[in-house]
């Protein structure tokens, strides 16, 4: 018995050790954000007098709020649009399957594997010719299309878990397809739809390739801002850390609220 107990203890120590190592970089960034620039470049130390100086500097001297608003608009806009297209589509795949449904699903997921640089130039040219470059609408469209496969896939796995009898009962009572979706399917799968939406928001929030290449300033989201973060006054690590901490805070909050569903989404529905 004591051997088992000590084995348990060792495993716990090991697990917490790994967690600390994995979490340390984020913790270190978090700490650096509360240092002055001088303290940030001094010999690394866990003990220092915390200050909000860097946060104030970021908020005052950069257009942080503007980029944050861009991120919010794009993440929520593209998610709403993606859900609008994906709900009927996933409904169709889950409840009206054809022999080709499986193939369509896999093909759809495989487009997620495309190298974005392979379609960069044509999309850039369309955007240039239609004035969508560096516009919020442009990125909303790109993010919607980017997330569509994964959103459809997630919704499909949630819809498939719903007992078919419920929808059938509705149909017996004379509900049309759209009524069936609005009054039965959506309320019953709301948690799944919500977590799919949350995942799409996080993916859009994290996206960098398209925002770096299709925006310059007006529509730049936080990722583009942080990627190009530097300061004319020289040292900027504390300010960068403050800006980064603010940029990941919403993700940590959202992620915490929906841990289990998030795992399902981030692993493409493989983990339930």
């Amino acid at each position: 018995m004591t051997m088992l107990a000590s084995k348990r203890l060792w495993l716990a120590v090991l697990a917490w050790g790994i967690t600390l190592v994995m979490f340390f970089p984020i913790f270190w960034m978090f700490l650096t954000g509360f240092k002055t620039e001088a303290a940030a470049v001094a010999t690394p130390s866990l003990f220092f007098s915390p200050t909000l100086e860097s946060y104030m500097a970021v908020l005052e001297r950069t257009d942080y709020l503007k980029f944050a608003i861009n991120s919010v608009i794009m993440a929520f806009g593209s998610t709403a649009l993606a859900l609008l297209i994906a709900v009927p589509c996933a409904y169709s795949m889950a409840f009206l399957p054809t022999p080709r449904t499986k193939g369509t699903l896999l093909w759809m997921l495989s487009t997620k594997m495309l190298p974005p640089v392979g379609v960069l130039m044509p999309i850039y040219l369309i955007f240039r010719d239609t004035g969508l470059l560096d516009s919020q609408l442009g990125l909303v469209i790109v993010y919607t299309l980017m997330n569509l496969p994964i959103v459809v896939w997630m919704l499909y796995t949630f819809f498939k878990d719903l007992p078919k009898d419920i929808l059938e009962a509705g149909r017996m009572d004379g509900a049309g397809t759209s009524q069936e979706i609005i009054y039965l399917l959506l309320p019953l799968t709301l948690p799944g739809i919500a977590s799919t939406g949350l995942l799409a928001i996080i993916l859009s929030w994290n996206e960098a390739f398209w925002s770096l290449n299709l925006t310059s300033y007006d529509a730049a989201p936080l990722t583009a801002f942080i990627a190009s973060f530097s300061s004319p006054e020289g040292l900027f690590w504390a300010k960068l850390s403050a800006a980064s901490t603010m940029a990941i805070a919403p993700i940590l909050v959202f992620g915490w609220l929906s841990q289990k569903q998030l795992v399902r989404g981030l692993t493409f529905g493989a983990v339930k």
Partner: protein
Amino acid sequence: MAISEPLSAPRAVRRTRSTQVRRQRVRAAWLFLLPMLVALALVAGWPLIRTFYLSFTDASLANTGGAQFIGFENYLLYYEGTWYGLLVDPEWWRSVWNTLFFSVVSVSLETFFGVIVALILNAEFRGRMLVRAAVLIPWAIPTIVSAKMWAWMLNDQFGIINHALMGLGIIDNPLAWTANADLSMWAVIMVDVWKTIPFVALLVLAALQMLPKDCYEAAEVDGINPIKVFFRVTLPLITPALLVAVIFRALDALRVFDVIYVLTSNSTSTMTMSIYARQQLVQFQDVGYGSAASTLLFLIIALVTVAYLYLGRRQLGGDS
């Protein structure tokens, strides 16, 4: 559309009604799929064809309309005794090699550590829900942010990693992790591994939790070495999940962009195919040549994707 009919049912009575309803539902099914199919054709199909076409032209960013068709010249051209083009560009081949090296090394390390982390997280201990949530974080935050964070930690003058290694007496002088050509690829790999261990670990953990407990109890009662149990029992059973994880990761690694863009930007020692193609397209504005590189990158990934589809049919086939 093959519609199966219940053969035993009294046909004449049911047929008209049921086929009518079914036909209507099949029509609805396609109607609902349409927006998604159109959207994907617009974002994946048409631009790809256009990239393919542009790769056979001399288009530049300033002059895409008046681009001339030049055949294979972007790929290979023999002119006055010398070969030109992508296929003889040492920098392109360097980036192909870098990409393959990065993909193989980082996916191997991620798989190895991912399995270890999953095995540990599968054990029962205090606060394991908290640990699982914390381990997920590197995978959930933007790569741009984590790469910047690592750039700070790996900074040659002020970075904590050099401080720690020097404090421990492992190195005597600070290392320029991201600037040194010998180190930068390893720095990039380390950051990528850190970021994606959670992904592999979670997939494997899910597989581990489905394993039957009794065969482990039996093994324990028989006093079989746990390492032997792992290789003989656990590993074969989690192989399907592991394959899915490896393929997802491999396809991601082959088109890696943001972590390298932030850590080393256009340095040749870490230049991958995506970075190379983007540099030609955006920085040098050589649309034709960059499109040729994009096309080759696409073909390489398509090959791997075909393998994924093949395995996907077999592996994912079971659960859905």
